[in-house]
């Protein structure tokens, strides 16, 4: 579809024109490029352990307890602010990577540990566990394929205002509550029907009701205490602590190629300091994660070493990534066809075979 300015508009809905087009062009459920890696080495990388994730989860929960206690202790004075800033990041941002890793079932070796942390983190970041498990499966099947991937954050042209609002999870929370209300009444929207199998629907409805009940409980606590303090601990940190997850999350795919069957062209690996890597559970190694999603987060630095010769150079820092992302997104507002072409080893990508497949003839 061509708009009034002659631009080719993309249809990111999962039931629209580009969804049909992706299927017709073989972009759905397709074969993706994989870097060669000896089977023995890959098997070692895939090996599960409980130790790293138990250690990291204990640190995370302890830090939540200490900062939360500090916030409550100093409530009413300015001193509580740094405690709540730290608590918010641990609650509203670190939960993003915990949700994510446990959805893959790779963080822990023990399956029930993955499931417990998954459900806790899902509530913290307000992502309904069943919906997001299936949505994320689709994201990995059809990464940044227009009309197939339900988790494309930076559309073309990008919604800059929405991205800024989501620094405090405002747009996403508004959207999430709408979905909770819909699901609590026993319904899914048509897009969700495309990736959540029927056998899982009742689970979605009951968890939505449970979430709403928990929020009613928090609200009742606030009324009973005549204070927003309960909500500062449960609920509001999803918003006031979301900023770091949003900053991390945009580096994953924003501004890169769409409709390419090579994660090296649509994902970024960004080098980060150990604190960020702890909070983000190594998701900065995003090319590696997408290419081999069953490699646990604690093995991603080793995987990076194993395949880096066959990948574009990683971004040396978060700042370096944003030096590319911000101008790209601004340019895409005027020119949605613009995207960053990653340089692959030994040759320059002049264009992708499939990147422009969305440029279908006008309807």
């Amino acid at each position, binding site marked *: 579809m061509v708009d009034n300015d002659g631009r080719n508009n993309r249809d990111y809905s999962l039931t629209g024109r580009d969804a049909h087009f992706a299927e017709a062009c073989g972009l759905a*459920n*397709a*074969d993706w490029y994989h870097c060669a890696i000896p*089977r*023995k080495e890959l*098997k070692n990388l*895939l*090996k*599960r352990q409980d130790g790293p994730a138990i250690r990291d989860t204990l640190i995370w929960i302890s830090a939540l307890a200490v900062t939360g206690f500090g916030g409550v202790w100093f409530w009413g004075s300015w001193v509580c602010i740094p405690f709540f800033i730290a608590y918010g990041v641990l609650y509203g941002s670190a939960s993003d990577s915990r949700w994510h890793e446990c959805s*893959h*079932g*790779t963080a822990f070796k023990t399956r029930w540990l993955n499931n417990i942390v998954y459900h806790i983190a899902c509530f913290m970041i307000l992502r309904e566990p069943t919906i997001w*498990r*299936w949505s994320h*499966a689709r994201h*990995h*099947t059809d990464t940044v394929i227009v009309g197939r991937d339900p988790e494309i954050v930076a559309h073309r042209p990008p919604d800059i205002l929405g991205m800024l609002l989501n620094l405090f999870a405002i747009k996403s929370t508004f959207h999430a509550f709408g979905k909770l209300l819909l699901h609590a009444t026993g319904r899914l929207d048509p897009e969700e029907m495309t990736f959540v*199998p029927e*056998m*899982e629907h009742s689970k979605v409805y009951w968890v939505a009701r449970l979430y709403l009940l928990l929020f009613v409980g928090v609200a009742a606590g606030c009324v009973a205490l005549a204070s927003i303090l309960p909500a500062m601990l449960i609920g509001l940190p999803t918003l006031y602590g979301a900023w770091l997850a949003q900053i991390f999350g945009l580096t994953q795919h924003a501004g890169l190629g769409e409709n390419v069957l090579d994660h090296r062209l649509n994902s970024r690996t960004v080098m980060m300091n150990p604190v960020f890597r702890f909070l983000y559970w190594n998701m900065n190694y995003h090319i590696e994660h997408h290419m*081999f*999603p*069953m490699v646990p987060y604690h093995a991603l630095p080793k995987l990076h070493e194993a395949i880096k010769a066959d990948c574009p150079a990683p971004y040396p820092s978060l700042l370096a990534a944003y030096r590319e992302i911000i101008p790209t997104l601004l340019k895409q507002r005027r020119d949605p066809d613009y995207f960053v072409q990653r340089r692959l080893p030994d040759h320059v990508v002049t264009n992708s075979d499939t990147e422009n497949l969305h440029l279908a003839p006008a309807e």
Partner: protein
Amino acid sequence: MSITDTPVWILACMVDDIEEEDVIRFDHGDRTFAIYRSIKDEYFATDGMCTHEHVHLADGLLMGYIIECPKHNGRFDCRTGQAKGAPVSVNLRTYPVKVEDGRVMIQVR
């Protein structure tokens, strides 16, 4: 080579082609299989593609008798083909296996 309606034993690989507690891919005609060797030196065979989506199970990890799809964490019991929970719900088809003179044979139709 095509596969007929009559069950036939075909050579899939040699025993040493698979490490203990591992899986390899075996293509035959237009079909693809996964051949497993357990830690107890038992051999099993199933269809090669995950029943959830288009992914070769031989790229996944065998843990005991559980084969994990390399893409979405779908898990199957390689002995029975039983799907072990979301995102997989459809069982894998399994095939009889025998080992003769160091050769791993599977029976297919």
